[in-house]
């Protein structure tokens, strides 16, 4: 008998008492009812708590803000599909595209990465990347040490269920809540281990 058949048989046999699958009570919050200003404020508060950098700007100020955040970095990568105007004022741009992907070694030699995101969750301070154009493949937002992430205010949700229900899970998803961190030594939080050690989130008002 194959392992598959045997394990499934064992499991069926284990359920000899035919337990009923209970109804799942979903009385938890499905929305926050917050307006845009409240969402921005909450997301900012959470991100700052994680020691991420946060700026809130209007669309016209994005290029200057991005350039300011990238000051001092000699190069940065942007995934194909990111609005070119946003990085127009920052020198050192390298584009990663499905047609011409950078190698791991090339990415390792680049200081920063600028991406958009699919959604953000205010209550948990989470930004979610799903690999769509402008967000890129996972390696891009992982290997460079500094991640600048642009979040449109309209993509911020109050609580997790609101955001989850708007995502396509079959895309490779990365949920990011602050810079890479560890609490493995005496449970003292240290920002910056293997992932990007610096995370700057630029929230764009609508």
């Amino acid at each position: 008998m194959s392992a598959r058949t045997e394990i499934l048989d064992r499991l069926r046999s284990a359920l000899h008492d035919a337990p009923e699958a209970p109804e799942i009570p979903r009385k938890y919050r499905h929305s926050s009812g917050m307006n845009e200003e409240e969402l921005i404020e909450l997301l900012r508060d959470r991100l700052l708590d994680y020691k991420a950098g946060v700026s809130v700007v209007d669309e016209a100020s994005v290029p200057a803000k991005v350039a300011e955040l990238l000051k001092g970095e000699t190069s940065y990568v942007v995934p194909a599909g990111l609005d070119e105007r946003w990085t127009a004022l920052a020198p050192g741009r390298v584009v990663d595209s499905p047609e011409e992907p950078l190698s791991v070694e090339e990415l390792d030699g680049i200081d920063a990465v600028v991406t958009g995101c699919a959604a953000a969750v205010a209550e948990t301070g989470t930004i979610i990347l799903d690999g769509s154009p402008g967000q890129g493949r996972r390696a891009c937002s992982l290997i460079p040490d500094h991640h600048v992430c642009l979040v449109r205010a309209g993509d911020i949700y109050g609580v997790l269920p609101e955001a989850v229900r708007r995502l396509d899970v079959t895309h490779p998803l990365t949920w990011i809540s602050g810079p890479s961190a560890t609490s493995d030594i005496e449970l003292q939080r240290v920002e910056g281990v293997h992932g990007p050690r610096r995370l700057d989130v630029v929230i764009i008002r609508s």
Partner: protein
Amino acid sequence: MSSTYLGMPAVPVYGSGNLHTAEPFPVAARRELDNEQLRANLGHATHTIRDKRLRVVAELPDWEELREAGSATKAAVMARLPELLEQFEENFTARGGVIHWARDAAEANEIVRDLIRDAGADEVVKVKSMATQEIGLNEYLEEHGISAFETDLAELIVQLDHDKPSHILVPAIHKNRSQIRDIFLREMPDVDPNLTDTPARLAEAARLHLRRKFLSAKVAISGANFALADTGTLAVVESEGNGRMCLTLPETLITVMGVEKLLPSWTDLEVFMQLLPRSSTGERMNPYTSLWTGVTEGDGPQNVHLVLLDNGRSAALADERGRSALHCIRCSACMNVCPVYERTGGHAYGSTYPGPIGAILSPLLTGITSEENASLPYASSLCGACYDACPVKINIPEILVHLRSEDVQSRRGTKKVPGQMDVAMKAASWMMGSGRRMALVEKALPLGKLAAGPDRKIKKLPGIAAGWTRSRDLPAPPAQSFRDWWAKEHEDTASKEQA
């Protein structure tokens, strides 16, 4: 909903691997209790994380509703497990993933070894995983000429020190910063000899040590926190980015996961990703969560495997009163609030799964008759703190009591000479099974005074009660029981009334 199995209930097939204590819990616990450094480290760590958890849980007005949803979801998963596994397999396979089934630890190890060889690799990078810990994968690969590098900081510390994890979330919780610095100085070949013991410097040393490995690894091995049946998606929850490195950069990704980790639907994550981070690290959200569904062209590993592991889980599922132990999402909240764990640490439990959940899960996976694990269900004062903390509401105290009864029952079956406890319990049952007999025995209570000193305290008792009087006095019994007083009192009243 669930299809009823028409076959006969089979004999449970138990698991093997790192699921056993090497010695009974009280013996191991006594040794660990003597380690002052360990107790200081553990006390500090468990209190810190306990406070953090309470703070972030209190922020959510719907925490109890989330627990209710989580608990019911897991009960539904258990009731429909075979069907959900088949659904998951279909979806994962349709998107280019390959599923392997492993009956036990040995079979899982062989599958992983063969996959690594097929990829032409002799070393792998690993994301912290309880399942691979449980099957003893690192040791097995080592024997077969494959080096496995743990990349989670705590796992790295433990691996470099040739030690064992003592906690499922923070495996090096038993070590403090200066101990960790000494390990790095001793075991990391390229380490800065001036390394200090500040946590930031130690984390930096780990980053430098592992960076080349991540960028060049061909094969990575991971566990999974969740598997979503309706989409065929796997999820890994982590903090440091070592998980993202392993899950993204190598060509081949091999995931080992217990069959119980399924969730019916992708949207169930909205519940579990609120429950897990707050319960485990006491954070609103962990820094990184990765989700992948089979293979994505041009992004991440192109050879994606999943080993589905039984190793005693079907046996645990067969125990109607113990099966909810399989609801566990490995958050470790129960160990952080457990007064027993706080004082003994994880090593005393022997198994990969320590603390309150380990005290039920290990014997359920191996069978209570397995001699070494029979002591685990007694490693609790039944204070109930674990049940309160559990995000999926596993009634650990109730299962502990259930397993104790299984243990007593199984020893009854053998022809072993009854122990002192067995004899005492039988005698007490006879006495306490009747108010009349209880009254008779209470008449003899004043004799207890003979055992007491002039200060009316009993300071030394024999046999199984000796442990009590090692650190506690017992008061001498009273001259008269309440029952006796009451009877005399009401006799008097009755006769007065008659007069």
